[in-house]
């Protein structure tokens, strides 16, 4: 958008902490994470299930499900704080400024209403279009997301669309009011592999054409490599490493990122065996002291079991690992 300076981040998340109060004490699901997204930029957020990536997305769009709550930190859009807005104010931002695409296209659409009705309803919530204008716009959107015969399809119900087609409809719905930012939460996970690439290409093209920034939440490193400008690797509620996609993939700093990269099969490289990271991510109830990754880390040393590492800038990336403090100190 014209009023945005290219040097100012569109979205700023600072020291965000998300907690779930339970009977047995408070669980911290997302702990002290910070990141920016520039206008038009695609930020990949990658991590295992339960790493807190979807919660972060939900917090940004203001749809954390109770009893989950933002316990600390701020979220700002265009320099304006949005994490503490009243419901009605935030509602006007949702869809209009920040759109969302969810994981499962099969369940994201209301089965009882035609696709056209759901599009028109969303368009009219955010604009002053008349019924016929909104309908024309709905058909246009369907055609933009690559749905053939949109004039006919607009009348149809979600169950008449295949999974990939439904995800296209969901994308059309998210883009209805031309938001500045899209939160795409595992947009391809529920789809056939053959369709995943199409959907990713579609999101990429539409966002590039409209200058829309994307926060792409996924556990699929391949999708990130193809799509994102920068990537944040999350582990147990914290950001382990964040930086430009090329740097993170080519020269992973954090041992966890390193392990993630080693577990991706690649064609044409002569690796005898895929490596795997032993063990599994700790549950929120028993995150170890020090670095949360220490039980699985092949390079852990004394300090890792005592102190929690802060993010340190190393070359172009930032990494939360004591190994690099050492390097930084030693020069």
């Amino acid at each position: 958008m014209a009023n945005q300076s290219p040097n100012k981040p569109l979205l700023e998340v600072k020291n965000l902490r998300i907690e779930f109060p339970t009977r047995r004490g408070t669980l911290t699901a997302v702990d002290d994470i910070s990141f920016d997204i520039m206008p038009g930029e695609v930020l990949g957020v990658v991590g295992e299930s339960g790493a807190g990536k979807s919660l972060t997305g939900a917090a940004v769009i203001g749809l954390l499900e109770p009893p989950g709550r933002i316990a600390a930190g701020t979220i700002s859009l265009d320099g304006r704080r949005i994490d503490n807005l009243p419901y009605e104010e935030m509602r006007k931002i949702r869809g209009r400024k920040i759109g969302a695409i969810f994981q499962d296209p099969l369940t994201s659409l209301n089965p009882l209403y035609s696709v056209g009705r759901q599009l028109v309803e969303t368009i009219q919530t955010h604009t002053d279009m008349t019924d016929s204008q909104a309908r024309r716009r709905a058909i246009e959107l369907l055609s933009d997301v690559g749905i053939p015969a949109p004039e006919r399809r607009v009348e149809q119900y979600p169950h008449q669309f295949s999974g990939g087609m439904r995800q296209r409809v969901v994308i059309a719905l998210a883009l209805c009011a031309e938001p500045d930012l899209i939160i795409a939460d595992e947009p391809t996970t529920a789809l056939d592999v053959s369709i995943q690439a199409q959907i990713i290409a579609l999101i990429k093209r539409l966002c590039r054409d409209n200058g829309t920034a994307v926060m792409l939440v996924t556990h699929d490193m391949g999708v990130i490599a193809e799509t994102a400008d920068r990537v944040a690797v999350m582990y147990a509620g914290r950001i382990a490493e964040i930086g430009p996609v090329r740097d993170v993939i080519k020269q992973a700093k954090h041992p966890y990122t390193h392990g993630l990269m080693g577990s991706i099969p690649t064609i044409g490289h002569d690796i005898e065996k895929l490596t795997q990271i032993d063990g599994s991510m700790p549950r929120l109830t028993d995150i170890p002291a020090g670095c949360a990754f220490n039980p699985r880390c092949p390079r852990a040393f004394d300090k890792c079991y005592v102190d929690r590492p802060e993010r340190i800038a190393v070359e172009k990336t930032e990494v939360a690992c004591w190994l690099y403090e050492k390097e930084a100190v030693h020069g």
Partner: protein
Amino acid sequence: MFAFIIRRLLQSLIVMMAVAFISFSLFNFVGDPVNNMLGQEATEEQREALRQDLGLNDPFPVQFAAFLGNAVQGDFGVSYRLSRPVSDVLATRLPATLELVFVAAVLALVIGLPLGVYTGLHRHGFGSKVLLTLSLIGISLPTFLIGIVLILIFAVWLGWLPSFGRGDTVQIGWWTTNFLTVSGWKSIIMPAVTLCLFQLTLIMRLVRAEMMEVLRTDYIKFARARGLSNRAVHFGHALKNTMVPVITITGLQIGSLIAFAIITETVFQWPGMGLLFLQAIQFADIPVMAAYLCLVAFIFVVINLMVDLLYYAVDPRLRVERSGGGH
């Protein structure tokens, strides 16, 4: 869709045949009407003559065929007790029961639905907790007790409403109605409230549970993410998705309203079919009992058919043929 209706109609026919058979079996297995009609002192010749007269001596299949043939034409024979054609007796009683059930069902829906939505949306609110506690009372108190308490308060103590009967009714053709006179309306209030209370709480709790279920779904989350107003999300998207189970239960409940009406009608001496049925049982008035059973079964079948058709109106997944999909 057409094939579906035909299939449903055939199923209904089978149900009706089964009910007719059970009703008819009453003639052979429940009580002896001859005793009731002639008293203890009648001679054996008189009894035999009456048996012959009523067709009780014919073989079973012949009797059943005759019963079916007559029943289809609306002829259920003559009431042993009232010595009038059963169809006439029922025709005078049917409107009273149907009007009572209609008012009770409308009350249950008009009050139960909004309360269900309210308690579903504000499930931790104070109002919801009060309503849920009250609804437990509605579900657990027996109908006759509620009726008697209402009579005590509004008829005996306050004297606002009549304690029994239908009040003045207006005759339209063979149908007599409560709805055109003040005393008719006054008379129907207490029986209808008594009758609806259980259904009301049931609908409220059902809608509440369904709302809570639907509000957790992805499409509601996505509707919120699209920035739709709360009103659109709650009433446009959530409520409509609760409708299929609510329609099912409401349909079934209208059937049980008719059944429960027996008790309510007795408490309020409401001149409907339920009261007639109870009197018929006491007298072993089998033609009336048989006709009542058939009629109630028929109403059930019709309601179920309507419920199935309503599904089609609500849910497009049933409406559209599979071949129309572009997979």
